[in-house]
């Protein structure tokens, strides 16, 4: 028992070893933020699987409709029209990109809540977290509206999830993305509800940041989908 005092733990302890309250985290970072980044890493593999499947099955459908001008004269007597609507999807891509802008501005507005407000009327309005959260959510809903329009018009043109490999892999990939956007919209609306109830302040910035990271990730997935599915023929 050379180290008797050590064994009984009979030491005066520094302020850091505080039994009353939580010790600071090892990295000084927030737990939730680490978890959401790990989650986003996991989502990379989820969408990688979906995107690979779409690309593997591209051009392997045995019946139409096909995504791009798959069959033109002289090969086919009646040309098969490309089903993907690039102008509409470009618009929805733009909408989603702008929703990311609104999202960062919402986060910045929350972070700056306790800073003195600027003087101009416009500048004051632009510092409203409610404005930007609403903007983000509405742009997300607009994107979903575009997707609903796209899906219904495809069904009218004879492409359903059962029609061919393109239909199955396209609807599943973009549907999964749409489901992620929907979840993001619900998350934003929840934040808005909290904002209306008690106001979001700088101490809530971490929770808004989590939603923002998720939202931007869904946006970058769309950036990849737009190129790989819509633009590359």
């Amino acid at each position: 028992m050379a180290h008797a005092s050590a064994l009984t733990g009979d030491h005066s302890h520094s302020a850091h070893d505080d039994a009353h309250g939580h010790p600071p985290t090892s990295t000084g970072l927030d737990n939730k933020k680490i978890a959401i980044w790990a989650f986003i890493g996991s989502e990379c593999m989820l969408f990688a699987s979906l995107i690979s499947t779409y690309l593997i099955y591209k051009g392997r459908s045995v019946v139409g409709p096909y995504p791009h001008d798959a069959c033109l004269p002289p090969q086919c007597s009646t040309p098969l029209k490309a089903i993907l609507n690039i102008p509409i999807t470009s618009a929805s891509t733009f909408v989603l990109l702008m929703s990311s802008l609104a999202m960062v501005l919402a986060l910045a507005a929350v972070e700056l809540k306790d800073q003195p407000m600027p003087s101009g009327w416009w500048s004051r309005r632009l510092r409203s977290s409610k404005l930007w959260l609403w903007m983000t959510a509405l742009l997300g809903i607009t994107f979903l509206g575009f997707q609903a329009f796209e899906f219904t018009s495809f069904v009218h043109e004879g492409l359903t999830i059962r029609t061919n490999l393109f239909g199955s892999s396209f609807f599943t990939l973009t549907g999964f993305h749409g489901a992620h956007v929907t979840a993001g919209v619900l998350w934003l609306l929840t934040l808005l509800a909290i904002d209306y109830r008690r106001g979001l302040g700088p101490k809530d910035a971490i929770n808004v940041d989590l939603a923002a990271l998720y939202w931007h990730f869904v946006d970058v997935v769309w950036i990849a989908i737009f190129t790989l599915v819509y633009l590359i023929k």
Partner: protein
Amino acid sequence: MATTATAPAYAPTESYVGESGIWSWLTTVDHKRIGTLYLFTSLFFFLVGGVEAGMIRAQLAGPNKDLFSADLYNQLFTMHGTTMIFLGVMPLSAAFFNYLIPLQIGARDVAFPRLNAFSYWVFLLGGIFMNFSWIIGAAPNGGWFGYAPLTTMQYSAGLNIDFWVIGLQILGVSSLAAAFNFITTVINMRAPGMNLMRMPMFTWNAFIVQFLLVLAFPVITIALVFLQFDRFFGTNFYTMAAGADPLLWQHLFWIFGHPEVYILILPAFGLVSEIIPTFSRKPIFGYPVMVYATMLIAFLGFGVWAHHMFAVGMGPIGDTVFGVTTMLIAIPTGVKIFNWIFTMWGGSLRFTTAMKFAIGLVALFTIGGISGVMHASPPADLQQTDTYFVVAHFHYVLFGGSMMGIFGGIYYYYPKMTGRLLSEKLGSWHFWLMFIGMNLTFFPMHFSGLMGMPRRIYTYDAGQGWELFNKLSTYGTGILAVGLLIFVWNFFRSYSTGEIAGIVPWGAPTLEWSIPSPPPEYNFARIPKVTSRLPLWDLTAPRLTREVPHTEAGDKRLDVDVASKHTATGHPNPTANAPRQGVEAGMHIERATGRTARELGIPMPNPTIKPLICALGMTIMFTGLLFIHVNRMPLALATMIGGALLMTLSLYAWVLTPLEDAH
């Protein structure tokens, strides 16, 4: 008890006794209780899987036996594999993750205690869901890797595969939720001074496994989603007539499946890396190399998946690449084997039951590893694939590897969990029966396999030279079963009659042994400060840690800092500049005080039923899918919507309730 000759006298009544009763278990968010729940549940499922294995061996004991129909046999081997992997070995590992990670890093709980409870309940409900299929007589029958298109509606129209697909989706949620939780816990909940390169090897292995889970499970999720959509909504992912590729499922499955192999074995490696140094009275040989080898195994594990598919004909480039990467993995694995051997070399060995199991792993895993390298060569693999040779191989790595390590871990950590030792005498019987039984069961399979006996056949004709080997395998299973029964007897008997363990029963060097057994709800009354990776040996046997880096100038290179440079300012190490003998300043052994967290003023999370409700809602939602195939569409919709609502509402209630009372 060799080291701490004067370990404090232990009186069980002194220790903190938590609330008991069913409700306290249903609402618990304590990582130790959740770990205990995982342990009991997965041991139960392990026994179920064992009974299935026994039935398989009974059927194959001799040629042309007809104990079971071919269809029932298909269900037996499918459920044996699925149960052992997803309901046995993985959650057994999870039991140790839960119990040990916070204790080993000096934390009071995991990062998200309620998410942890959710993971357990999802696992339990998923396991019940999967096994419920037995009751309605439609257990999964497509093999544990459920190859599509065999598992599509065209070839498997019954509910069997529905149970399998949905069950795996449910279990996947559990594993993923737990993985995010443990990643955050290890990164962020370490005690002051517990640098990454001071974490115990078990925690390191567990940490790396979480990344494998996080990256591998989404892939199987998507493969299963495709299968689900094919089966329930008529998509074409696995419909050959629509131009689908029969290899899509195989590739996606094995991109998950091979990391899964490391998910199954690395936790056992971690346990063995705790057991061997303790019973050799030596720090582990080459600690940093062990860490890097584990990382390398995990990374390479994502680049070898197609070696499960050499027989499909991927062409020379694919075969070569996957053959070479597979052989490369043998290098870090070999490093680990040799490091364990060098740890034992020159140590003062004590052959406790835990140590016997650990050495059993080293020996038996090596045999399985060697047959694994044989499969890495595509021409050799073509002879072996889908034969009993492969069955022998993976039982050597999974039974001889994972299960030996897990049993070692149970003998080693039982005293920490219960305060009592398992009987060493019964343990010795358990070990030897299991060791002999396991070799007698699986070694002959190498021969029957090379003589051409295919996997998954429900019976075989006489005169092919397989009778003797199958007979031996069946006898071996009988011996295994006896060993297992002895273990179960030992496990339950020792709970009330085992020898009192005390704080440091084995003289181990890591933090979990510095607190009472079983630990109080708050684990550490005072958060320890760590100055080396063998803190208890610094206290009790400093001679053993002479070679181990401590917090001193010159050791910086070992303190790999994935966090920021600012960590140092956030966490001044109290003994940073003290001479080595100053380590006592940071470490201490806590005696049982019998005081509650409230008395000590330690904030602890409140118990809550919400994670269980949320898990239940999710399981109900998935169950609704089943009704589609019995043509009860309104019922299916009602169940799915009801389950989804229950899940969402309880999730909101959970998220909007603070974790703990304000102090």
